[in-house]
């Protein structure tokens, strides 16, 4: 019995991280970041607008919400597509009524199939950002570079409305290959939102230039808490309230934080859930400490500070 001597090689055992993509940073040691709204907590709601192909298969893994029954899994296909027909309009109405905005991470295929949906999101004033081609095209190291490059380049072209080209990227199911950040930078994006290791932006360095890594919500998402973990609706909203309480206690107008929440129209856009979301959104928007912003606003502000040496990368 032996694991072999190579198992005792630790090539990255050094000060700092075990890769060169970005530097280690402790949030407590980071320079304070003041938000343009003058409020301590920036509320960043991101909405995944997904399309799950009926024939998406299961390689290299099935993302949450993917097809899991025998083909044709119309049960799951249509339950997801419900979000694009019905749920998203409920979310748009609630956010508009609350005077709130959001970032929509949209699969390119949604824009191609449902241009009316893209228009509705654009007209609501939400940020339109890229979420890959569709939920059947995951980014992973099994893809060759050219195939992945094509996905990264084609998606924003499908989402461009007039002169508004997306600047934010969120990979389907937070999946990346080793090449994804570089391809995303090369395609002209300014921020990427896949790494859930921080609560404030930081810088990712790629051969094609820097990206801002935005602290997208993973745990505080309806996909995670309601769909995957089967918690109750009031447990979802109470955890958001608890996070806000913590972040308010840890922040000041001069040293801001981000409360990131991620939603899916096919989850929170259900009739029995939307009232709880309306109530929470109304409460958040009435909070004196909260400034509701989009991902591109937050990333651009942070990037400006970082370039001036006023934010810790």
């Amino acid at each position, binding site marked *: *019995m032996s694991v072999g001597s190579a198992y005792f090689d630790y090539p990255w055992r050094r000060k700092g*991280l075990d890769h060169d993509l970005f530097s280690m940073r402790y949030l407590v040691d980071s320079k304070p970041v003041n938000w343009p709204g003058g409020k301590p907590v920036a509320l960043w709601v991101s909405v995944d607008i997904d399309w799950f192909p009926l024939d998406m298969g299961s390689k*290299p893994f099935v993302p949450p919400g993917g097809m899991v029954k025998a083909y044709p899994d119309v049960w799951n296909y249509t339950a997801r597509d419900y979000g694009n027909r019905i749920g998203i309009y409920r979310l748009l109405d609630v956010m508009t009524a609350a005077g709130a905005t959001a970032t929509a991470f949209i699969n390119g295929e949604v824009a191609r199939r449902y241009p009316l949906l893209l228009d509705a999101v654009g007209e609501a004033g939400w940020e339109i950002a890229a979420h890959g081609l569709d939920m059947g095209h995951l980014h992973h190291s099994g893809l060759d570079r050219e195939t992945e490059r094509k996905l990264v380049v084609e998606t924003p072209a499908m989402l461009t409305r007039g002169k508004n080209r997306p600047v934010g990227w969120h990979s389907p199911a937070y999946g990346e290959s080793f090449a994804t950040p570089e391809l995303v930078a090369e395609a002209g994006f300014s921020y990427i939102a896949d790494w859930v*290791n921080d609560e404030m932006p930081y810088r990712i360095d790629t051969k094609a230039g820097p990206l801002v890594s935005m602290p997208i919500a993973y*745990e505080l998402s309806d996909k995670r808490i309601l769909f995957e973990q089967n918690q109750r609706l009031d447990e979802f909203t109470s955890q958001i309230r608890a996070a806000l309480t913590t972040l308010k206690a840890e922040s000041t107008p001069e040293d801001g934080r981000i409360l990131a929440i991620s939603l899916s129209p096919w989850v929170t856009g259900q009739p029995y859930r939307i009232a709880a979301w309306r109530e929470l959104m109304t409460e958040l928007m009435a909070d004196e400490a909260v400034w509701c912003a989009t991902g591109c606003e937050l990333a651009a502000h942070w990037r400006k500070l970082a370039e001036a040496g006023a934010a810790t990368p």
Partner: protein
Amino acid sequence: MNERKTTLRDPGHYRYLPYRNRPKIVWPGGKQLAFWVAPNIEHYELEPPVATRSPWPRPYPDVLNYSHRQHGNRVGFHRMADVMAKYQVRGSVSLNVALCDHFPEIIERCNKLGWELFSHGIYNTRYMYAMSDDEQREVVRDVRDTILKYSGQRLDGWLSPAISNIESTQQILAEEGILYTLDFQHDDQPTPFNVRKGRLVSIPYSVEVNDVPLYLQRNMSPDDYAETLIAQFDQLYAEGAVSGTVMCMPLHPFLTGQPHRIAAFERVLAHVSAHEGVWKATGREIAQYFIDNYYDAFLAFEDKVNAGNLETVA
């Protein structure tokens, strides 16, 4: 040690010991419950080698799961440590020791807070499965040297990385002079271990009220977590009046240190701290106190209750 050609039907490390009529434990100062908190301060490698099983559920790089765990070191650790300091609770750190090299700032704060460091292997992505005895000794040596270098502390405690210990691990720990192990979940009190050389005790850890199983496997909300831990405490505290019990709170800063969970953690510490009969200890202190005061009595009681029983020896 020879390699085993067959599998065991039980681990063989401990004898049967009924909860009733054991020698009475009283913790220092007449306390009835030894409470200790074990933050698992870990690093999971982005591209670990695979000897037995892959550490990541997704193809490398598993950006989602890697970055989720990394939150603990970038953000969650300090939030969690602040709450512990507020309630005068010292941590006993289940440490992937490579973290000393990667993130020495975290170890500096642990040292300042007076926390114990014990072994959780090199990385949480390097398992002990299928290691030879010499390979296991090499892990012990590395851990011992690294902890000494970065904290000046002696290595006294052992939780195998991802609890990947094998049949021979505990024998090797005893030979290497380790005081206590946490790989076994069979009791609410310290117990002696059957080892051929040296002496080893098992201290209650917990996979039952550990934040990973509760939050990631049982999918609990923070409120349910707090209620679970408080119920665990209340029962063990009551039983501790009969004979001293141990309650461990195993933590992972990437879960407990999240903004939506930290209040639940604080609620538990506030509840525990409101009880007079609690000894807030470290793993090392519990092990040493048990060895000094109760080890022999427990061994004698084991002999008595197992007289005539099937003997299980590793």
